[in-house]
């Protein structure tokens, strides 16, 4: 079977467990937490690397972001990617999902001649889950979202499982195509120390808006190319309930709880 050229767009995100939100200013304090690779993207990368190991070929990761995002790309090299490209430049800044998809699609056109694109289901910061399918549309290729299992690879297609309408659909995706994967698809391996050391020294390619001008219209990049804008951000007050806590012996706690629930029309 022919070997595979696989592209994995990845994103650097703040560590969502620790990032703080400024309730008064209504903004995200990005300096409050370390960054990491979007966890869902690690599943996408792992799946691409597994296919490469089995069938040969190459894995190229792609990230749009400031130069700090290089650490995320290095991490992808340590995890088995062969080439990493950073899309960076002020012209890309402030992009919404459509503009981000457009920019990534333009870069993938420049990469050219790929078989499959692997995306995570969503990012933990933007949380939209729409960049994958938008890239597929802009490249005019088919896609399958929410892939929980890759069954097999044939000469020119992939057989995958996806959850739709409360059932599992087994779909055939002909190359070139795009999949977005859920966390169920695999358990990403941790990079070895040796791989990490090697990735530290690796070259990361950097492409600015000018590099992509033959592959996309620059007017569509960044803030100015974005159809949507965030007007304001609310940090909703953490809804804490004035819970009634029972600490009696089990039978007594159970009796009290059942009586409260019955008062509220629950339970027989």
């Amino acid at each position, binding site marked *: 079977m022919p070997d595979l050229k696989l592209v994995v767009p990845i994103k650097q995100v703040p560590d*969502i*467990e620790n*990032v703080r*939100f400024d309730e008064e200013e*209504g903004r*995200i304090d990005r300096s409050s937490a370390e960054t990491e690779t979007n966890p869902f993207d690690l599943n996408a990368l792992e799946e691409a690397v597994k296919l490469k190991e089995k069938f040969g070929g190459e894995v190229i990761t792609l990230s749009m972001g400031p130069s700090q995002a290089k650490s995320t790309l290095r991490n992808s090299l340590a995890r088995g990617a062969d080439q990493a490209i950073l899309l960076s430049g002020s012209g890309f800044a402030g992009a919404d*999902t*459509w503009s981000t*998809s457009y920019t990534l699609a333009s870069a993938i056109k420049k990469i050219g001649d790929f078989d499959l694109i692997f995306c995570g289901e969503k990012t933990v910061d933007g*949380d*939209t889950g*729409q960049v994958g*399918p*938008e890239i*597929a*549309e802009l490249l005019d290729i*088919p*896609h399958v979202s*929410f892939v929980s299992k890759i069954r097999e690879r044939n000469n020119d297609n992939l057989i995958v*499982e*996806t*959850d*739709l*309408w409360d*059932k*599992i*659909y087994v*779909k*055939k*995706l*002909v190359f070139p195509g795009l999949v977005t994967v*859920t966390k*169920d698809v695999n358990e990403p391996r941790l990079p070895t120390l040796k791989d990490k050391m090697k990735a530290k020294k690796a070259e990361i390619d950097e492409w600015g808006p000018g590099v992509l001008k033959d592959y996309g219209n620059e007017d569509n990049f960044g803030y100015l190319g974005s*159809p*949507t804008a*965030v*007007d*304001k*951000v*609310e*940090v909703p007050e953490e809804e*804490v*309930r004035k*819970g*009634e*806590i*029972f*600490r009696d012996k*089990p039978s007594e*706690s*159970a*009796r009290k*709880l*059942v009586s*409260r*629930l019955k008062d*509220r029309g*629950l*339970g*027989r």
Partner: protein
Amino acid sequence: MSYEEGSGVWILAEQENGEIHSVSYELLGRGKELSENLNTELCSLFLTPDSQNAEELIYRGSDKVYLMEDENFDRPDEILYKKNIERLVEEKKPEIILVGATNFGRSLAPRLAASLETGLTADCTGLEIDEEEDFVQIRPAFTGNILAHIYTDRSPKISTVRYKEFKEAERNKNREGEIITLEPIIEDNKENSSIMEIISPEEEINLEDAEIVVSVGQGLKDPEDLGLIKDLANSFEGVLGASRPLVDEGWISREHQVGYSGKRVKPRLYIACGISGAPQHLAGMKESDIIVAINTDPSAPIFNYADYGVVGDMYDVIPELVKQLSKD
């Protein structure tokens, strides 16, 4: 192609085998208010293998139903749906399009928005018209930690809308509206992406629609003990849920998973047994009407979100609960 300004609020009536998904009635409920605010019409798009439920969309508030009937719409084929919706959008130029944030909706809407070169706001929980008659889309981001208010400066403005966030439109059999039947474009793109097989889950569980959910987490010591939780669920005629670690362990199938990467639930009663309350789990259940937590650790975060808490070992508390509930 996007345009400067359109008119009309459209909703996509999602169906499976011609049965309309109830999120569509919620879209009609909210869509009606938006269309009244904007003084415009409310239309449903109904692409279906079976048109017999089209009237239902009129009863629920549609002024018009754009109906395309073809057996191929029984397949969740994003490209086929996108082509047909796009053609109609370009002809009629609606201002707003609402799509349910189901897996299919979240897979289809991005293709539509990308192709129309317009904005799409995902997973909205609020949809408003501001004083300047602009459409504001409100959505959670950062794993539910913030709410972003988003404007779109082109048309159509497209949103996917979270299930169970808005009230269903009331049904009125006397309402009148127009059903406009259109010939769909059916191209055979089965070559590129085709459905080989459809597997129904071994057990039908519908967590998202359940009135009562009884969930279990890492307090469970052995998969054999799931019977205990099932007994409690049965006492309430509720559905069994679980936190991610149990699914990862293979102790329970992932159809039961509640949380950020599982199902989001909003039942009348949610009972969390031996669940500490990690943010990923809370994101999937904290909007439940009544939350009960049973946990040995009094400092477990779940107690902050609970209306009632029992500090104790679920292995002791649950049998007592079952006993009490079986009493008259």
